[in-house]
């Protein structure tokens, strides 16, 4: 009887130690697979938009994707829910991958629109699909405004207001 309870106690103690060790090592293994700190910090791209030229497409790279940043000229009208006002100017900020099959559309400055060479899809200056196979407008990446600096990868109030409208 004495032996039984001792064996039972040793068994439970061993089980408890093994469970703690097992859980701890699972956590370690999970974290080893996590993106590295360098990758996480590279997940944010900052662009100073004050120096950009109007009607000339700037392409930033954010998380391996091209991001279109287009400063509007005076005669280009902002599109509700898609154009962002930074300082005194309006901008388009969107992921530069055609929503059809992911090609990168080209900007046609004279017509203020985007044309995808792959299957002929066309988008307005604000990224709204207006012709061809693309099923939806160009995606807008999460961004935050910090004065005249655009931080891609963080959700600021302007971004939240835009997604609420869409």
């Amino acid at each position, binding site marked *: 009887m004495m032996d039984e309870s001792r064996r039972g106690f040793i068994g439970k103690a061993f089980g408890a130690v093994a469970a703690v060790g097992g859980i701890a090592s699972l956590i370690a293994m999970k974290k080893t697979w996590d993106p*590295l700190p360098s990758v996480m910090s590279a997940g944010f791209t900052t662009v100073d938009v004050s120096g950009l030229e109007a009607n000339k497409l700037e392409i930033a790279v954010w998380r391996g994707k091209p991001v279109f940043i287009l400063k509007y000229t005076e005669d280009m009208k902002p599109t509700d829910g898609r154009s962002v006002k930074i300082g005194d100017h309006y901008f388009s900020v969107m992921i530069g*991958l055609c929503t059809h099959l992911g090609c*990168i559309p080209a900007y046609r400055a004279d017509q203020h629109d985007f044309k995808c060479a792959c299957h002929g899809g066309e988008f307005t200056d604000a990224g709204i699909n207006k012709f061809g196979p693309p099923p939806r407008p160009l995606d807008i990446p999460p961004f935050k405004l910090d004065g005249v600096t655009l931080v891609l990868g963080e959700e600021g109030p302007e971004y939240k207001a835009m997604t609420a409208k869409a």
Partner: protein
Amino acid sequence: MAEFKKADSILEWFDQRLGVVNFVKVMMTEYWIPKNINFLWAMGVLLTVMFTFLVVSGIFLLMYYKPDVNMAFDSVNYTIMQEVAYGWLFRHIHAVGASVVFLVIYIHMFTGIYYGSYKKGREMIWVSGMLLFVLFSAEGFSGYMLPWGQMSYWAAYVITEIFGGIPFIGDELVVWIRGNFYVSDATLTRFFMLHVLLIPLAIIGAIVFHFYALRFPHVNNEAGEFFDFDEEAEKYLAGNKKESKVVPFWPVFLSKDFFVLGFFMLFFFYLVFFHYNFAMDPVNFDKADGLKTPAHIYPEWYFLWSYEVLRGFFFEIAGVSGKDLGLIAFGIANAIFFVMPWLDRSPMVKPANQRPYFKYWFWFLMADLIVLTVYGKLPPTGANAWVGFASSMTFLALFAALPFVTKAEAKKVKGK
């Protein structure tokens, strides 16, 4: 320590220490296989041989391959293909072998379904076999990424993206699997590890388990007949080889198997030397570029049927988006074969052609899988998309109907 007397022969010396005589008996010369079988029963040994070929060719590739986004493509396409003597041979054996292994897996699997070899005590053989299918799929997918060409990259991108469809944790899970926000160096190195170490280890373990699962229920036969293996073995050992319904694994069964293997190897090396292009997609000879998607992405032929189920649903039904429906259907398609033994409610173990209802079900399934495979390769536009939708629905409907079909069959057979 046990007492050892001086051995009279080398065999006896090893037998004293390792029990080799008994081991060979249990594993080979007194492991009994039914006599009433055909060439389709050779697929298991074919797969074991193919797996060995993949391991050996893989070892040679491993000596020159570099798992780094800047070096991977050139280490394969320049170093291995052009500099290493016979490097091309090992690459072609590895690539063609990966394709052919799936061909044989499918034959093996559908032989099992046709002859009812997953039923009545053989459930664990079936389940472990399906586990092997999943492991081989993971091995194929992870290996496809390594040459770091455009198809490698975008297959990795699309397949890891699938996990994004899992509710709540989807987006974080995709980043976790990739080790980055997009398919990158971290993704390549971890899938390299999976491909050359973890998954092969799991496969070896699962193969051992699959073989072990055969020991008690024994191999099925062409008529689905149940008999006492011990009794038949006794007859064989007593010299009544003609009356006995079994033969020993070695030398009788394996010698026939090697004959089939001989033909298979001729076919395999014909492909390796003269027709390897089908396993070498031309798009994959462009280096991976995350900023440029190929116009048309498709998987290797053996994943086409499940890929077609994935994209077969392209419109919203009852408020659920086409993407989510496709994901659900894809999940079902990959898991449903595991429960075959429990979906088939007919106790009959017979070849499909002798089962009144199941035979229609079986050939319908074959036809549907062929349609899915063919349309999985075509661009999903216009009528193709609808064929994809119809054949995906048919696939799901067939499995939903299986319990009812087999239940009705059981009733009919009993009533006779």
